[in-house]
C-alpha cells in the first residue's frame, strides 16, 4: 500500500461526508438544525484545506466558519423566527 493513497482516502471520505451535511442543511426546516449542519460542513472543509497543505487558511477559516458565523446566525434566528414555513 502506497503511503500517499491514505491522504486521498481521507480526503474522499471527508468530501463525501460534507456532501451529506450540505444536503441535510438544504432540506432541514428547523433553522437551528440547519445552522448546526453547516457547522459540520465547515469542520469537514477545514480537514480538506488541511490535506491540501494550507494551514494558514485553516487558521482563518475555522474561527470564521466554525465560530463566528453560526453565532451570528443564531443571533439573527433568536431575534426573528425559528421555523421555515412551507
Amino acid at each position: 500500500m502506497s503511503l500517499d493513497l491514505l491522504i486521498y482516502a481521507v480526503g474522499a471520505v471527508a468530501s463525501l461526508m460534507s456532501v451529506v451535511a450540505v444536503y441535510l442543511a438544504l432540506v432541514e426546516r428547523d433553522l437551528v438544525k440547519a445552522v448546526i449542519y453547516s457547522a459540520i460542513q465547515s469542520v469537514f472543509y477545514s480537514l480538506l484545506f488541511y490535506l491540501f497543505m494550507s494551514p494558514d487558511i485553516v487558521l482563518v477559516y475555522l474561527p470564521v466558519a466554525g465560530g463566528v458565523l453560526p453565532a451570528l446566525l443564531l443571533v439573527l434566528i433568536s431575534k426573528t423566527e425559528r421555523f421555515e414555513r412551507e
Partner: protein
Amino acid sequence: MVGFLAEYMFTVIYLSLFVNLGLSLFGLFYKPHYVKKLIMLGVLGDTLNMFAIFLGYRAWPSPTTPSRPPILLTYPFENASVLVEFTSRAVDPLPQALVLTAVVIGLAVMVFLIFLGDNLFKHYGTLDMREIRRLRG
C-alpha cells in the same frame, strides 16, 4: 493499481465539490427563507475557495517526501539548497493568498447581510421572501 486508486479518489473529491456547488446554488435560488439563503451563500463561497486551493495543490514528489505548505522555516539566501528543496516540494502560494482575503471579505459581507435581515424583519414582520415580494407589489 495504486495509481488508478489515487486518480479515482481524487476524482471523487472533485465531483463531490461539484455536487456541493450545485446543491448550494439550488438552495440559494429556490429556498424561500432568508436565513436558509444566507447559509447556502456561505456554502457556495466555501466551495469556490476550495476550488481555488484545489488548483494550487500538487501531488507528492516521491513516496517518502510529501509536499509541504508554502512556508519557509529557515533563512533561504545563505545556501541555495533550501530554495531548491522548497521549489521542488511546496504547493502554489498564490491561491492561498487569494483565499485568505476572500474568507475575511466573505465574513464582512455576511455580517452586513445578517443585519440587513434584522432590519427586514423589523420592517415586514417576516423573513419569507415570497411574502416580502408580495408586499412590495
